[in-house]
C-alpha cells in the first residue's frame, strides 16, 4: 500500500496542519514518522494515496508549515505480531 507522510519540525505544526486539512474537508491521520523517511520519534501526518493529490493542492494554496512530503510503501498488518 502506498501512503504519503507529511513531515514537520515539531508536533505543533503537525497538529495545526491536521486541523487545517480537516477544515478543508481532507483526511489525515496523526502518526509516528516511519523510520524509512526520518530517524526521529516524531509526529507526522499520514495521507492516503487517494487524497494526496487534493492535499498537495491544498498545501500549495494555503499558508501551511511543514518540512516535506514523503512517499512510503507500507502494509499495516494487525496479525504480524511484532511488538516493541
Amino acid at each position: 500500500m502506498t501512503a504519503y507522510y507529511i513531515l514537520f519540525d515539531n508536533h505543533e505544526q503537525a497538529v495545526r496542519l491536521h486541523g487545517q486539512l480537516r477544515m478543508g474537508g481532507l483526511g489525515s491521520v496523526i502518526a509516528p514518522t516511519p523510520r524509512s523517511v526520518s530517524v526521529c520519534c516524531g509526529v507526522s501526518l499520514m495521507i492516503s494515496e487517494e487524497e494526496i493529490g487534493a492535499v498537495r493542492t491544498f498545501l500549495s494554496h494555503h499558508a501551511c508549515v511543514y518540512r516535506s512530503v514523503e512517499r512510503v510503501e507500507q502494509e499495516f498488518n494487525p496479525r504480524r505480531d511484532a511488538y516493541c
Partner: protein
Amino acid sequence: MADKNHAMWKDLGMDLDTHDLLCAALPGAFGDVFMSQKNRPEGMDYFNTVAADIHGLRPAELIAEQKKGRKVFGTFCVFVPDEVVIAADGIVTGLCGGSQFWVPDGEKVLPTNTCPLIKASLGARLGKTCPFFRIADMYVGETTCDGKKKAYEILGEDVPMHIMHLPHGKRPQDLAAWSGEIRTFIKTVEDFTGNAVTLEKLNGAIQIVNAKRRALERLYNCRKGQCVPISGRDVLLIMQIAFFDDPQRLTQVVNQLCDELEERVAKGVSVAPKDAPRILLTGTPLAVPNWKMHNIIESSGAVIVCEENCTGTRYFAHQVREDNHSLDEAVDALTDRYLNNIHCACFTPNPGRLDDIVRLAREYHVDGVIDLNLKFCTLYDTEGYLVERRLKDEGIPVLGLETDYTDNDSEQLRTRVEAFLEMIRG
C-alpha cells in the same frame, strides 16, 4: 524535532544508540496495532500525537517544569496516591515498563524468573533507555509483591526512593497502617519538594484526580452498550497515557472524546460487528507499550469492552471523598479509597476482586472473560484458580492465559483465543 529530542536525551545521560533501536520499532508496531483499525474516533488524534513522540513531548514538558523548581515523582502502582504529590506542586509520572526491549538490561541484575514488568522497569532505568526513568527526581515504590520489593532495593542504589508499605489485608489495623503510610509519604513529599501539603491544597488535588477518574469512568461507560464506539486497543492506549500525562489536560481530552463516543452510540456507530464476542480482560497490568494481548484478541474477531486490572477499572473506580474539613479527614478519605476499594491480588483474602469481575461482566454484557497473567506473577497466577472457579460457577466462559513481552508465543496465544471465541459463538 529529532535533533531537539536527541539533545534532550543526551542531556539526560541516555544510551542514544540503544534507545534508537526502540524508536525504530515503534512506528511499525503502532501502525500494525492502531492504524490498521478502521473507523477510529477522531478524538484519538491527541493520543496518536502523544504516542508518536512518546519519548519527546511529555519528557520535554517535565524537564521544563523541573527548571521552574518542580519535582517529578515516578510511580509503579495504583496504590500510590497522586493527590499527595499534586498537593505539594509535584508531578507524577508512571514508570512501569511494558516492552521486551528493556527486559535484558533488567535480567542483568534480576533473576530470569521475575515478571517482565519488573525486569523491564529496572532495565529501562539501568540501561538508560527511557527518558521518564531519567527525569524522575524520586521514585515511589510499594510492597505489592516480593519481586518489586527486592527490585526497589536495587533501584534505590541508583535513584532516591520512597517505599510505601502496603498492608496485605483490609482489617481495621491494616487501614490504620495504610493511613500511617500516607502520612509518612506526605512528610517525604513535603521535605523533597519544600512545599507544605495543606488541607486546601490536598482538597484541590483530590478534586483534580477525581475529575480524571470521572472522565475515565465515562469513557468506560461508553463501552457498556451493544454499540461499541471505541476499540479496546484505543482505550488501552488512553489508559497507558493517563499514567504519565498532565491530569487536567487528560481529563479535558478524554471528556472531549467521550462527547464524540456518546454521539457515536446515539448514531449506532460501532467499531465491531454486532456479533463480535464481547470480552472482559482481567489480571495483571498492561504497561505501555504492551499492546500484545489486546491486539491478538481484537484481531481475532472479538472486541474488548472492559479491563479489570490496574491499567483498567482499578485505576479510576471510586472517588476520594472531597471537601474534607481537616488533614486527618483527607488522609482518612485517601486511605478508604485506596485500601478499601482497590482489589489487588496482593490482598488475602481478596473476594472483592472476584465480585468486581462478575459485576463488571454483567454490566458490560460480556460473552467471556480472559484472565491474563504475566509470567512469574505468582499472586495473579494463583488467584487465577479462584477467578476461574467463580466465573464457571456464575456460568461465564473464561480462558486463563499466561504470557510475557516477547513475540514468540503470539501464534500459540492466537490459536487459544480463536478456539475460545469459537466456543463462545457456539
